[in-house]
């Protein structure tokens, strides 16, 4: 859906304000399709083929999915980050305030897609991991729950996060001149959830810690989850920048001047 306002510019030579939210909604729909399909697959294949990691059927129905996920995700990560770097704006110093506002709001709308992806990893798939492992089975590191939580939901928000980071430092002057620490934390903090999986799996195998979901072994996820608090600092920086550049493109009546 695109929200379009026409005729807002005071002069005919000034392009009216146009906010294109299609990429944001499209991104969210794609995520709903991916995660919805995965949840349906769990319902269909977990009880029948996902209870025993030594069963050949587990290999067919679950490990195949795992390998496919990893191949697709690594490919997408490289494609997106490379694309945003190669097509970077090489003349950012000449960017007009109007274009900067357009890009910034577009980028913020994609930040909503990042937050939406993080929701599936941090909330939806994370807590259902508890119910499967504590009440059904957790025989290896690869279970019907983990295969979608750790190896799909987490990589998806990491791909989006790093793509957004690359877009920010190559297209938005506010982040290109100097690197924003809240932005780094907002992207890299949640990213660290994935390496924490390594410690988590090692710990589960070594100490067999399935009795409590709240075991200290899991607190690494909590610590890096806190880094999303840096969103507050990021929004603070964005608002400051908007306050600085918006007066350059609007007059006192609120009409666009450039």
């Amino acid at each position: 859906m695109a929200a379009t306002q026409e005729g807002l510019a005071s002069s005919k030579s000034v392009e009216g304000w146009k906010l294109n939210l299609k990429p944001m909604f499209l991104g969210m729909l794609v995520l709903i399709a991916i995660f919805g399909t995965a949840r349906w697959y769990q319902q269909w294949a977990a009880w029948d083929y996902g209870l025993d990691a030594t069963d050949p059927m587990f290999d067919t129905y679950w490990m195949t999915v795992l390998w496919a996920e990893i191949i697709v995700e690594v490919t997408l990560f490289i494609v997106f980050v490379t694309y945003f770097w190669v097509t970077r704006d090489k003349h950012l110093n000449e960017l007009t305030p109007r274009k900067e506002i357009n890009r910034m709001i577009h980028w913020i709308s994609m930040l909503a897609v990042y937050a939406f992806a993080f929701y599936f990893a941090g909330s939806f798939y994370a807590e259902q991991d508890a119910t499967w492992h504590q009440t059904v089975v957790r025989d290896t590191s690869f279970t019907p729950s983990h295969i979608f939580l750790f190896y799909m939901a987490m990589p998806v928000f990491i791909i989006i996060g790093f793509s957004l980071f690359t877009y920010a430092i190559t297209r938005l002057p506010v982040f290109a001149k100097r690197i924003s620490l809240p932005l780094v934390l907002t992207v890299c903090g949640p990213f660290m959830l994935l390496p924490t999986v390594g410690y988590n799996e090692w710990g589960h195998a070594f100490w067999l810690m399935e009795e409590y979901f709240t075991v200290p072994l899991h607190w690494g996820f909590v610590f890096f989850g806190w880094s999303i608090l840096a969103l507050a600092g990021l929004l603070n920086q964005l608002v400051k920048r908007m306050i600085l550049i918006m007066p350059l493109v609007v007059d006192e009546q609120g009409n666009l001047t450039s």
Partner: protein
Amino acid sequence: MSLTAPEKKLLKAITTKGSAAAKIVRQLDLIVVGILFFAIIAAFHIHIMLTVGDWDFWVDWKDRKNWVTLTPMLLIFIPAALSYPFMQRFGLPIAGTLCALCLVIGEWVSRIVGFHMWTYFPYSMIWPSIAIPGLMLMDLVLMLSRNALVTSIFGGSAVALAFAPANWPILAPYHLPVVHIDQVVSVADLIGYSFTRTATPEYLRIIERGTLRTFGGESTLISTFFSAFVCMVLFFIWWKIGEWVTNLGTVPNRFKSMVGYSEEEDDEDAKETV
């Protein structure tokens, strides 16, 4: 704090009804609300589920001292941290209520789609704890006092003091005694025995000490007051963490020449901006 001339101009522009500036700001607001909604659900939910989740998942675990003691302590971290930017930067004393609301939404979606639809537990066994009243009181104290210290003492303690009473109306029926295999147990215990959880301590072995049980009695009060004391301290610590995170700055970008900026270019403007 006085406004500069461009800031005054901007303020006038965005408060002019129907103007392009007003629309830009309104649309930005709506997008930011969406971002905060999903990000807070994710961050707050993963924090709660991995620190006090076990007591929150199951109704029979809600009769333990640790549930009353630890849950309010852990509930206060993220709302306290977010209270700083919400209140100090945007004048909104809503962080506690927003976090509680996001948490309950995230938890219910997970309990329905995961716990109920995937592993077939009844809702009577898996309802999440009620956290909204205490965190609303925390916001109320912040709104009235506009002071972090006062809020840590009265608002922080309110999170703990309101927790057990807020949950009591829904929890009380589960404390009714029933006889099961010649033993007196609670309704919650009986539900727990009926729905097997293969990896939880009760199923593997009885490991708890009798003193961990509350039966809604005086240990609930004692746990609540202990929790209130810790919550006072935690609110202030996490308020300061929120302040630190909100005011994080920038570092030089070594690659800025690759996007059109010269290495020598003065970046004081960017420093000031961020």
